[in-house]
């Protein structure tokens, strides 16, 4: 048979075996299933070819579908930029293998406050993005949402701040679990004791810290834990000083809601000081980079991730990357369904989509509805401890 025929069969097999299912993007393709599928496809295609032979006019050539354009705003200060890009590109490749062309347009430049709004406007107007993936930084995410509010361009956000879904714009979604949801799940997984657990929190300065502090305090209150004002880690403060402030509070649990480098340094400092309390990090640090940074430490670290996201594997999982991939897939699905009609009319989404991080379902405010699993970093790898209801 001609080579073109085999390549078509391969494409069909790939489309059949690479469906948008709850499967890790790093998992290998099941070869046996593909081989079986290939045989079936050859038969089917053969029958079709026989049926079509001599059937009159050749069928009209399929109209090339224009690529879906998804904008990705990544300001230079975005700590998760590499993971986000990696996940988004992975999704684009997978979608392409299934015949859905997606063009990823990445923007983000240094500038004053408000530059992200400017960049989001450029993505929508000059780059003609059909939808936008907003970053994990809350300030950036809000500026994308503001542009979306006026332009009606769908947005999926990777920011865990609860305020991101505060506006309630129907065509804006948050795909990551909120900070308060994560913290509450972690606190609930603590071994029971006779009294409310004492919790400390370390947050960055300024706006990001304010947002995290508000969410963590809400989580502690909801979980029946004691959390005083979080420790704000100013840029000039050394890690040992922060660790000393944590130890002075004698917490049973310390929530490290800071970037990976600072969280890893704090974990090590607390371990050196033989701090008896547990430490936890936000899900954005379930990355190979953070895993490498705490490798060799005897510390036990907790985190809460979507229950559908398997962490017990090698290489170290990257939750941000997986969420980014899910976001691109979700947007592509919504845009494809919308066709030529305005895509914002597809919202609010009422049905569930399958994702590599579990089912993608959203409430009427755009928050993802999901179960969380508490995971533990010990002996050089993440392990699932417990799953909790949303």
């Amino acid at each position: 048979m001609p080579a073109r025929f085999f390549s078509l069969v391969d494409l069909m097999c790939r489309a059949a075996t690479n469906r948008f299912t709850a499967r890790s993007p790093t998992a290998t393709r099941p070869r046996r299933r593909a081989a079986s599928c290939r045989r079936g496809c050859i038969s089917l295609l053969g029958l079709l070819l026989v049926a079509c032979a001599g059937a009159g006019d050749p069928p009209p050539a399929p109209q090339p579908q224009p690529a879906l354009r998804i904008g990705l705003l990544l300001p230079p200060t975005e700590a998760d930029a590499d993971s986000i890009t990696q996940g988004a590109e992975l999704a684009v490749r997978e979608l392409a293998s299934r015949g859905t062309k997606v063009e990823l347009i990445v923007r983000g430049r240094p500038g004053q406050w408000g530059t992200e709004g400017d960049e989001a406007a450029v993505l929508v107007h000059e780059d003609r993005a059909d939808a936008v993936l907003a970053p994990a930084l809350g300030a950036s995410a809000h500026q994308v949402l503001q542009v979306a509010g006026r332009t009606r361009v769908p947005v999926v956000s990777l920011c865990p701040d609860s305020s991101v879904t505060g506006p309630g714009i129907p065509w804006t979604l948050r795909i990551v679990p909120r900070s308060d949801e994560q913290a509450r799940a972690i606190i609930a997984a603590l071994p029971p004791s006779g009294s409310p657990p004492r919790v400390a929190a370390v947050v960055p300065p300024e706006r990001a810290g304010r947002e995290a502090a508000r969410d963590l305090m809400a989580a502690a209150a909801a979980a029946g834990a004691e959390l005083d004002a979080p420790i704000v880690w100013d840029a000039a403060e050394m890690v040992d000083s922060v660790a000393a402030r944590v130890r002075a509070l004698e917490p049973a649990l310390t929530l490290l809601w800071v970037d990976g480098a600072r969280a890893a340094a704090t974990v090590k400092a607390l371990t050196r000081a033989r701090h008896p309390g547990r430490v936890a990090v936000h899900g954005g640090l379930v990355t190979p980079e953070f895993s490498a940074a705490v490798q060799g430490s005897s510390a036990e670290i907790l985190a809460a991730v979507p229950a559908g996201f398997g962490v017990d594997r090698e290489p170290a999982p990257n939750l941000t990357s997986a969420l980014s991939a899910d976001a691109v897939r979700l947007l592509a699905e919504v845009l494809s369904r919308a066709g030529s009609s305005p895509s914002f009319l597809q919202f609010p989404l009422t049905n569930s989509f399958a994702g590599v991080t579990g089912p993608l379902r959203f409430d009427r405010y755009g928050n993802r509805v999901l179960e969380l699993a508490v995971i533990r970093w010990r002996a050089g790898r993440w392990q699932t401890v417990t799953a909790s209801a949303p």
Partner: protein
Amino acid sequence: MNTPKNRNRRPEWLAGIFLTVALAAPAALQAEPVVKDGDLPMPLIERFENFGAKDGIPTHKVHAVYKTRDGHLWIGTWDGLCVREADGKFKRYGPEDGLSHKMVLCITEDPTTGDLWVATMRGLNKFSGGKFTQYTQTNSGLPNNVVYGCDVLDDMVVVATAAGAGILNLKTGQWRIFDHTNSLMHEPWCYAVKGAKDLIYWGIWGAGVLEYDFKKNTWKEYRDPDRDFHYDLVPDDGLINDITSWLSWEDGILWQNTYFGFTRYDGKKFKTWVQDQSPLLSNFTQIVWPHRRVAWIGMDKGVSVTDGEVWVNYEVGTDGEGIRTIHRPGAQPEKTVMNTALANRFVLGIYVDDEEAWFATSDGLSRGVYANPNPYKRLPGIAAAP
């Protein structure tokens, strides 16, 4: 006994009535409903006229509409600024004509000079003498290029941008910039602005409304007291929500749009409305145009018009028909099917005066024609226009 079987055996006289009604129905449907609006505090729209590509509008997405004092109608679209000419066609101005960006978000007029001020996704523009002058972050003191709103008050042009509030002194050309570092602004994201005699109101994304007394140089903040984004825990206790999607002020009354309801503040008391507990068509409100103390509210489900007591709603039915519903306090809603409807139920911009109402929608421009010409002349007790 009224079983399904004998229910079909209707008397002959009933069939006669059905026949009469059936013959009369088409005529009744075609005729415009008789409008009795003399007791209403706002004019009733009896029909809509819609405008789109056939009229020279370059795109179906219309974001802003404004009629200048010389009678010209201007619209801001996804693809340029347009003015309606004598022949009824719209003439477009785009970046090639000097406009700083093609997407126009807000239009206002300097009542003294007649200059037009145009807020866009990248920069502020003055249209004067047929020419555009651009104000951007790099060539002026504009706080940020994304200009969501603008207004003219005395010798000042005030702007709401994605990174702060700005005041341009038209006499000196000097800018003053306010953000979270030098004002009460909790967040620097300004989403709307309106001048109000000695005050300027900014609608802040995530921080309610800021009032600036520019003579005293003092600030006052209005916030949602419960700070809850999704629920108004106590009605009428303050702003309904901290994320202000638009605001306006007229004759002593401040009106606030949010995506979770609508607020009125008369300087003493707050009044809030949500869709489940009032005739407000939707909580997702995006624009308000006050006229003679009546708010014309645009949202994702049409238009609600209210003085706070009486409401008139304009919706688009599933078959594209117009639906007008009058809600009077203590009375059953009066629903009327109209022969014409808004171009689209998603309303983004509104302009209203004594003669007509205009609506910028997600799919074209609409003109609302009043049932009675000069309705305010017939209404006793309505305050004179400020």
